[in-house]
């Protein structure tokens, strides 16, 4: 019985897409209450109360959408949750508010200039909500058929029968459509609309004719009339595109020349100007709405002086998004110059920013984070093991501590233990070095490594001899 149940669970897992676990996949939001105060542990976030509250205010600013071109700097030591806060902010934004995340070094490319890369990133962070007529199919589901090929390989075959009070039609479904139908759990009796171009499904409710199918229905079940007339209609649909997407569409060369030009690359400033004009026109006519989003630049000290001065100017544009930057540097050289500056950012740009500091975690907070990560990575750990791990994370770094979760879990699995114990952590700790021990090791055994500093001295001596 238990075995059968387990087999069933495995089967279910197979059908839903397996998601991989990233460094910040446990974060679901900023964990703030309604008055924007940070809850101590919430939505995967722990501690960093003042930084989270500050980010909450930034979030409010983005949501209001009235302020353009503000810059926020998240500054703090490595492993204090800067990227986590940015990820949390992205998760708390609405589904159609654009959030672009990039690393500072991404702008260095041979294909386009640095400023072009930055401009594209900025324009990716501005959304335009447009009303447009589009073909939709609206009807009551009569039947859904999804068949897998008998051999197990090849694509699935799907059919959908929809009806209105006046007609009935059989549709063939593509692979993506089958997936979303299964995911939405569409069944006969539902009244749905499908966007014919994008395949987006939205469920309007259940048909009145099926109201007596079940004795018990959830209180949120909505009953609607079966639609009338034709299944396919043209309806006004609202959708969001970014300015960059509009740029790309309009800078495409037409005709056979399109074969010779790449899809990306640089976009002419005239095209951008023309589009800005058009968008402004739509906005005045009430046809479009601008949604300023967020641009997040991680490792911002990797930008050089030219980028910083470009950003200075770009932030003044009224179409600019809110730019959030993160850095873990102290007073250091600005890239491309010999000047030193706090965070490696020129003072004039720093002056335009509001700076949110992140502080190192307390031991209690480290423990919370590690236990959240254990849950995320599906590891059971004893309390003692968690205490040891917290100590290790405190002594070395939080990242190293998180690395030990999976490794010690695998060690525990080898001895068929359901839970990770102190010994497993110890074993993982001896197997894998943290940076501190690695440095120490190098100091002790430097002589035996290739190209160590003493080699140079030796070679010089040999040269003199010859």
């Amino acid at each position, binding site marked *: 019985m238990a075995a059968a149940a387990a087999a069933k669970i495995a089967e279910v897992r197979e059908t839903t897409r397996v998601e991989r676990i990233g460094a910040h996949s446990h974060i679901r939001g900023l964990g703030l209450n309604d008055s924007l105060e940070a809850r101590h542990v919430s939505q995967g976030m722990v501690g960093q109360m003042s930084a989270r509250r500050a980010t909450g205010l930034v979030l409010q600013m983005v949501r209001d959408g009235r302020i353009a071109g503000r810059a926020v700097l998240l500054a703090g030591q490595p492993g204090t949750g800067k990227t986590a806060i940015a990820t949390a902010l992205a998760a708390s934004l609405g589904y159609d508010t654009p959030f672009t995340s990039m690393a500072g070094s991404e702008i260095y490319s041979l294909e386009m200039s640095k400023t072009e890369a930055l401009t594209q990133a900025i324009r990716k962070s501005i959304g335009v909500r*447009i009303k*447009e007529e589009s073909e939709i*199919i609206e009807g009551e589901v009569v039947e859904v058929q999804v068949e897998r090929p008998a051999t197990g390989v090849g*694509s699935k075959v799907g*059919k*959908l029968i929809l009806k*209105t*009070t*006046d*007609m*009935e*039609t*059989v*549709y*063939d*479904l*593509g*692979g*993506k*459509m089958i997936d979303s139908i299964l995911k939405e759990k569409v069944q006969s009796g539902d009244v749905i609309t*499908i966007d*014919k*171009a*994008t*395949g987006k499904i939205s469920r309007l409710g259940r048909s009145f004719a099926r109201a007596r199918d079940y004795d018990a229905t959830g209180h949120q079940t909505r009953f609607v009339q079966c639609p009338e*007339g*034709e299944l396919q209609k043209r309806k006004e649909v609202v959708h969001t*595109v970014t300015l960059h*997407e*509009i740029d790309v*569409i*309009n800078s495409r060369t*037409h005709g056979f020349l399109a074969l010779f030009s790449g899809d990306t690359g640089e976009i002419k400033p005239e095209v951008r100007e023309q589009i800005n004009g058009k968008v402004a026109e*739509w906005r005045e006519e009430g*046809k479009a709405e601008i949604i300023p989003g967020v641009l997040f630049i991680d490792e911002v000290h990797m930008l050089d002086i030219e980028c910083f001065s470009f950003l200075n100017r770009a932030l003044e544009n009224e179409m600019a998004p809110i730019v959030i930057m993160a850095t873990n540097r102290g007073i250091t050289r600005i890239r491309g110059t010999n000047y030193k500056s706090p965070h490696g950012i020129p003072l004039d740009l720093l002056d335009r920013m509001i700076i949110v500091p992140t502080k190192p975690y307390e031991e209690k907070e480290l423990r919370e984070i590690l236990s959240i990560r254990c849950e995320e990575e599906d590891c059971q750990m004893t309390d003692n093991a968690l205490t040891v791990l917290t100590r290790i994370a405190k002594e070395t770094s939080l990242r190293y501590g998180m690395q030990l979760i999976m490794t010690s879990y695998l060690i525990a699995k080898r001895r068929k233990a359901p839970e990770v114990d102190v010994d497993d952590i110890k074993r993982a700790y001896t197997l894998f070095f943290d940076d501190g021990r690695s440095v120490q090791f190098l100091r002790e055994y430097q002589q035996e490594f290739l190209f160590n500093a003493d080699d140079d001295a030796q070679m010089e001596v040999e040269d003199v001899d010859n």
Partner: protein
Amino acid sequence: MQNWLNQLKDAKKSAIADDYLKKVHYEFKDGRELVEEYNLQTNVVTRRAWRTKDKIGNENEWDIELGDPEPRFGDESQMVIKENASQPIISRRNTKTNLEWRIRNLPYPIETYSITCDEEKKCLTVKTTNKKYFKNLKVPELDRLGIPPNQEAISFCHKYNTLIITYKKPSELKELDKATLELAKEVPTKPQVFDQNNCKPS
């Protein structure tokens, strides 16, 4: 009628032709494109297709107003949703005196159908008593003239799984056809020569 003719006159025109067929391409000021195909032996429009741009600047696919739909050789894996091959399809074909619709894959007997004209929506409505098929047919030729459709002009028959709807052209439309044909004939034409021996693969 003048309105439509003026639009055609103002449009950027180009044409190609061989012995039997003349294709005329119109580019209107608002960015729409129209292609008409004339059969030079009967002087009847055999095809008419439109292409429009959406708001963002994307080009839509050709929308076939008249003639058989374009065969599609698209990548099947990109398909999102489409009607099953067994479902009714509509194709249009006009003659000198009539507008015609053919709805194929409709197996029901002739008493099932009723075709009425909806003056408010300016379209013909096809209904079936068994509630299996329903369609509002637009009549773009009459729309351009600004005449509502007339119930008297409609007749229909059912043969070989196909419902054929015939609408008798009013005299105004016949005149317009004549005028547009003349306009089309005036468009400077490049000859379309098909040389069997000159097949360049690229």
